[in-house]
């Protein structure tokens, strides 16, 4: 479904992705993890042509990504940017409807879809009339997610879509998303910093370091056959504070 072949990308002469190849099979959820600044967001941007690699090529839906077809392809994927990327001059609901209205989808179906998504994300309908600056961090993030899901795209690129959400909302959304993704056979590339989230959503995990792909496998394989001591270190990092929690709540 998504093929990256020998991708390199630099900013101001500084290479941040090094000769990276990756194949994401249809219907799978792949989680990107790695230290801050290792190139996860850059990789996601490259996959939808927001950035262009110096070397290598990328294909989506068996089509090579080029400036000519990028707009058409983008309309078939959902993208959540790391900061949400809501338009400040539109209310939450206007942000969500934007593409559906632009593509002249049936307004009644759009309304239905919005109601459905509100249920999913536990957002009340009157919140949607507000402008992004009137929403809390977690609310903005959920609206951004709803916007990406709106057109029910086959491929989803999600850059820390639940990072600002509280545990309750987050876990319930994780579960809902897992169901949706597997039932509808979505291909998903998701960045997260929460290993629990990775564990519950990922079919496959990509672990990156400094612009290199360290290992690409299932979580249990990463754990049992780590390609590098760093993989083990990274996977286990959060277990200590959790243990503290367990200790304190007995």
């Amino acid at each position, binding site marked *: 479904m998504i093929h990256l072949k020998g991708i390199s990308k630099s900013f101001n002469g500084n290479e941040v992705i090094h000769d990276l190849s990756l194949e994401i099979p249809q219907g799978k959820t792949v989680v990107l993890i790695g230290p801050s600044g290792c190139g996860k967001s850059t990789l996601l941007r490259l996959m*939808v042509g*927001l950035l262009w690699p110096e070397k290598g090529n990328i294909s989506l839906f068996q089509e090579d990504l080029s400036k000519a077809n990028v*707009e*058409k*392809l*983008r*309309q*078939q*994927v959902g*993208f959540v*940017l790391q*900061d949400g*990327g*809501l*338009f*400040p*001059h*539109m*209310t939450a609901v206007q942000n969500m409807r*934007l*593409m559906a209205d*632009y593509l002249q989808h049936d307004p009644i179906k759009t309304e239905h879809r919005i109601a459905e998504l509100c249920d999913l994300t536990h957002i009340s309908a009157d919140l949607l009339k507000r*402008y*992004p*600056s*009137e929403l809390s961090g977690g609310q903005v993030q959920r609206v951004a997610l709803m*916007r990406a899901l709106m057109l029910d795209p086959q491929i989803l690129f999600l850059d820390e879509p639940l990072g600002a959400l509280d545990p309750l909302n987050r876990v319930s959304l994780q579960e809902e998303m897992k169901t949706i993704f597997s039932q509808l056979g979505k291909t998903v590339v998701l960045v997260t910093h929460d290993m629990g989230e990775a564990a519950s959503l990922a079919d496959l995990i990509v672990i990156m370091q400094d612009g290199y792909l360290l290992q690409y496998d299932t979580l249990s394989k990463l754990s049992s056959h780590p390609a590098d001591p760093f993989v083990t270190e990274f996977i286990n990092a959060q277990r200590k504070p959790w243990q503290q929690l367990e200790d304190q709540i007995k």
Partner: protein
Amino acid sequence: MKNLTFYSCLFLSLLIANPVQAEAASEIRIGSKKFTESVILSEVITQHLQNNHISATHKDQLGGTRLLWKALVQGELDIYPDYTGTIIYEILQGEEISSDADIKAALARHGVSITAPLGFNNTYALGVTPSTARKYSLEKISDLRQYPELRFGFTNEFMDREDGWPSLRNHYQLPQTAVRGLDHDLAYKGLEAGSIDLIDLYSTDAEIAYYQLSILEDDESYFPDYRAVILYRTELIDHVPEIQAYLTQFGSIISETEMIKMNSDVKLEGRSEAEVAQSFLNIKFNTLSKIEVATRLDRLIATTSEHLFLVCLSLGAAILVAIPLGIWGSRNSALGQVILSIVGIIQTIPSLALLVFMIPLLGIGGPPALVALFLYSLLPIVRNTLSGLTGLSIDVQESARALGLPASARLRLIELPLAARSILAGIKTSAVINVGTATLGALIGAGGYGQPILTGIRLDDTGLILEGAIPAAVLALLVQWSFDFAERTFLSPGLQMKQESTS
């Protein structure tokens, strides 16, 4: 965007093709000069013709002798009142005139006829306050020779005229040097305030009685006769034969006292020229004219509609052209530089030069004024559109692209709405400048508030200047407010959020 440019070009060409002024030609046109007595006389003539069912219109306050004379000879006016002295010394300047018959003959060569005098003589005179007269025991103009310290304040016209101050001084060998050019009304004020001692005046001036002035006797008979007469195009008689009879009825009909009374009614009592003419005709001919009160308000409405026409069309066209130009320029910085340079160069073309340049292409009247205004309105809008668009944050632009919106939709749905504040600021600046610049319409016959302003500047008449300048300022504010209103309506509330904390 191509579409936008296309429509705006279309709009612009419609605008240029649109005829601005149409004249009704069959009426008899009576002109008057820019002072009260002339306006009253022309009003009397006009009403008298109208009372006798001749279609007539009064083109009032048309500048000076030379303009009226030219208009009469060229057939743009049919009738206007003047004075024998003015005819001899200004109109027929340089011809040998020694009798009324000479005048008739000379005028006839220009296709102009003259009526018998209307009765009164409105010559120049010199006036002083009673106290000045007593102090220096002044009675005659020649008495002035002994007092070189006297300060004179003369109308600018009197300072310049062939029969005015320079030759009066020569004639009487007057020694005074403290001579200032002043507005006629200011001169009375200055006399009253004691800052000048002597002024020129017309012998039928209403103010003579009002200020109880002493008139100095013209003992060496310098001032010629200024008997009022009516001039008219000779060929008028072919078209409207009865007109000669009606004009003849004015022979010796107005005495000096009557004229002074009429002037005083207008200038001191504040009655309109039309009313005064009406009651005069009522007494003399027992008619009652219908008068349309063409007040300051009427003039205001006329200039306002002309000004609005200029502003709305040129600004509208400028908005339609400048925004696409700004958008276009924002796509590519080299192109943007070129566009801004061209628009900037246009902005530096002086308006007179631009108008002069356009006369061969568009003639005079509305079209060249509109084009000039249009061109002058581009820069602020183009630049603010360009700067607003290039200043958008990368995040929202990336976000818009990530959705898969094509460039045109991004522009319409995201970029323009986000740059709207900057663009509207440009439009508001442009609109205010446009309202101010539209006064140049008067330079080229397109009317507008420039008309009273230019006349006011020329005549040094602050009232007239304000009659144009105040509505122009008000219009600028209204235009600005209407765009402020548009801003509140169109600019997304999401971009108008205010912070709560004041520190």
